């Protein structure tokens, strides 16, 4: 089993004719993802690798019954592409684009409260259910089918942790990159609650980082609502305040909120062991299984 995506998921790729869109569509298809359409204004009627392209997401949904979208659209147009996805009756929209202006995302966030479509990202690597489907840019080959859920704000850190798990023969139900931006769609609590409801997920890895208070909220959620054990990791213990560490959202504020200490202690208080190294995270997960 899995959450959010599986081999039935019918994917439309927004921005399929661009360089990244085209490349990763190929990668997604090669992984077995059911990519049924592309959507690019003005490119309707074309094909990319045999996949029909439509001018609008609306048409792609009508013609090909797409139920999820992956967005590879440059930052200047990405918020509009997300709105387009949210206003169609898709179940899921995955926004890969990095560098969307924050105020655009605040507007998207407002619309999220009015739609049933779930947004993942932006500035995220996407989501993968090993052996079934991947929506995004995750390297499929490092994942393997199993019983551990994974949710992370970072792409490569996810790969690292998956690598540590794989080395022990531990596979994943689904791995989700929620993205490194300050305003995102699906957050830790959303992802954790989905894993909690998933019968096949026996343990969850949660990789947080400095900035914001999502990890603290996740800790409270775990404490109150989760039976599934969670192993944590928090990146950025050595980050100085006031500096943006790569991700737009990875910043300890000048007044000292968003620190790794605060997050680690919140997780510990919720009974979540937080590893000092990715290897320790894998140790903790192994101990749960």
């Amino acid at each position, binding site marked *: 089993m899995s959450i959010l995506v599986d081999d039935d998921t019918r994917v439309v790729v927004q921005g399929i004719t661009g360089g990244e869109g085209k490349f990763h569509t190929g990668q997604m298809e090669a992984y077995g993802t059911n990519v049924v359409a592309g959507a690019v204004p003005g490119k309707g009627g074309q094909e990319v690798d045999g996949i029909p392209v439509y001018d609008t997401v609306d048409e792609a949904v009508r013609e090909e019954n797409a139920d999820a979208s992956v967005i590879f659209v440059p930052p200047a147009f990405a918020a509009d592409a997300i709105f387009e996805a949210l206003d169609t009756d898709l179940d899921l929209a995955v926004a890969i684009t990095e560098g969307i202006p924050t105020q655009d995302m605040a507007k998207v966030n*407002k619309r999220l409260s009015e739609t049933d479509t779930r947004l993942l990202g932006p500035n995220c690597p996407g989501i993968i259910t090993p052996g079934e489907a991947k929506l995004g840019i995750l*390297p499929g080959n490092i994942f393997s089918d199993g019983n551990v859920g994974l949710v992370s704000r970072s792409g*490569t850190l996810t790969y690292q942790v998956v690598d540590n798990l794989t080395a022990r023969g531990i596979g994943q139900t689904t791995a989700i990159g929620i993205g490194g931006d300050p305003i995102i769609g699906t957050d830790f609590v959303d992802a954790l609650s989905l894993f909690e409801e998933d019968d096949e997920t026996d343990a969850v890895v949660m990789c947080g980082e400095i900035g914001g208070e999502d990890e603290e909220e996740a800790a409270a959620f775990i404490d109150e609502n989760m039976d599934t054990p969670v192993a944590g990791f928090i990146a950025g213990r*050595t980050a100085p305040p006031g500096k943006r560490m790569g991700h737009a959202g990875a910043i300890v504020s000048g007044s000292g909120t968003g620190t790794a200490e605060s997050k680690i202690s919140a997780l510990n208080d919720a009974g979540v062991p937080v590893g000092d190294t990715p290897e320790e995270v894998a140790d903790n997960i192994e101990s749960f299984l």
Partner: protein
Amino acid sequence: MKLHEYQAKDIFADAGIPIPDSQLAASVDEAVSAAEEIGYPVAIKAQVHVGGRGKAGGIKLASDADEAREYADDILGMDLKGYTVDQVLVEAGVDFTNELYVGVTMDRGEGKPVAMVSTEGGVNIEEVAEENPDAIAREHIDPAFGLHPYQARKAVYNAGVDRSVARGVSSILTTLYDLYEERDASDIEINPVMITSDGDVVAADAVMNIDDDALFRQPELAEMEDETYEDDLEQKAGEYGFDYVRLDGNVGIIGNGAGLVMTTLDLVDYYGGKPANFLDIGGGAKAERVTNALDMVFSDENVDAVVFNIFGGITRGDEVAKGINEALESFDEIPKKVVVRLAGTNAEEGMEILNTDLVEVEETLEDAVQRAVENAQEASQ
């Protein structure tokens, strides 16, 4: 991106917010003649991207020409928290009875902007927020609608602003939000708004930071960017287009992806070393980018050893290895020991390509970091 006080004030004034009479000066003589023209007292204010300028001696009040000359001379050229002061704003002193705080920023937890008003202006608002949060009236803003006029009034009245200036302060707050939205600000604030002895309101300071991700649609603001950095390395990183943060340790760190690079820093610390920097080469980096990254860390005189940690997704291990070889082969002698760890896409091909005469190779992140920490300890002895 940060605007200087004088730049923000120009924008505020164009939008109708009252500001004191002022002139920018780049020399002592310019400063004095500006002061003479404006009339005393004047404030002489360092124009650098540093908070707490006042406490650090970057703002002084001159009551005559002699003082103006003396203070301008003190401030121009001074080092303020690592930045050299090239320009001062000479500004009419305001006879005020009260100082307020007015600002707009993004509340990331709520995912919406928030307008703030406090009667405890003139001091660090983050300290006020910490010690006396009720002293700040907050109104969250629905970004689809913008700040409703009633919300501006509500924030002002709830903060306890005197009724006689409430309309003026509401109007400033409304204008600030409009600017925040139109100009893609990440933060915009006036601290303090001074209530003059005549009962007028005037913006005595001005902070306006712009969302870097929105500069593409704010060309006028992008042109205002002052490319002075805390140090040359951060400037170089800007030119190369790297996410880079300089730290005070001696282990140079290069990696791909913010989370993984942060983790690498944390592991350096965990294994007893001290990270010299955060450097993310980003996704899909090609050989040239790798070469530039190595140039960055080698240029840092504090660096005693380097760890290069790549987990390839889009980034291909063979491309990275090629870049490392090219960069290092150009040296007669490798400046610092480099430990490389490649994993993920084409990692094996990369490992094969790597010239192991020039670098040390480790299989795991933990081993790579430990070895680099040891290298740094040896080199610094």
